[in-house]
């Protein structure tokens, strides 16, 4: 079945530095990829999703590029903010119903 791998469980960095959270996937087909964000004591919610064409999705300064050749959908931001501290999940869906999540990356941004 499909799987999503997030290699970093914890990422800690200083405010103003760039952010990159890794996500790779395995799928028989060409799935749609998503990033969800979960702030403390809240429900996960959509941050951004891949497009069918070559557009690069962006939201709140975050962006991600789907690379089918390497099966990756890394999340990036040029300058981290304190409010970016949260749990980030990469997810894939290729069949309309079964949405599979990775293990999550907890991002902590320090002053």
């Amino acid at each position, binding site marked *: 079945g499909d799987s999503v791998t997030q290699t970093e469980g914890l990422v800690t960095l200083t405010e103003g530095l760039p952010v990159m959270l890794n996500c790779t996937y395995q799928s028989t087909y060409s799935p749609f990829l998503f990033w969800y964000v979960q702030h403390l004591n809240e*429900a996960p919610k959509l941050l951004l999703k891949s497009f069918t064409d070559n557009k690069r999705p962006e939201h709140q300064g975050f962006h991600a590029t789907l690379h089918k050749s390497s099966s990756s959908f890394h999340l990036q931001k040029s300058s981290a903010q304190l409010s970016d501290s949260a749990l980030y999940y990469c997810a894939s869906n290729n069949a309309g119903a079964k*949405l599979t999540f*990775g293990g999550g990356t907890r991002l902590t941004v320090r002053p």
Partner: protein
Amino acid sequence: EAAVTQSPRNKVAVTGGKVTLSCNQTNNHNNMYWYRQDTGHGLRLIHYSYGAGSTEKGDIPDGYKASRPSQENFSLILELATPSQTSVYFCASGENNANTEVFFGKGTRLTVV
């Protein structure tokens, strides 16, 4: 905005007891999901549903049953609760389209003692 409501929000159950977690959505979404969230494992899919009357096994269905009696309601049932099922459970709903977002409830914290 999509509304997904879970009840109860917190539950303490005894080992061997039966637990039912309920979920209601008011957005007429076809698909509904139950996930559990554990540190180091992320969100793992337990059961999901394409619509009323359907239930499908997710990646970790053992020890859990699901019921979808209507478009709006999707329940997760633990017939014989065990301490290993202590976790935070999230219900979610979405349209039957691979490229649309799902909307999560606020979660249920279940402790099995």
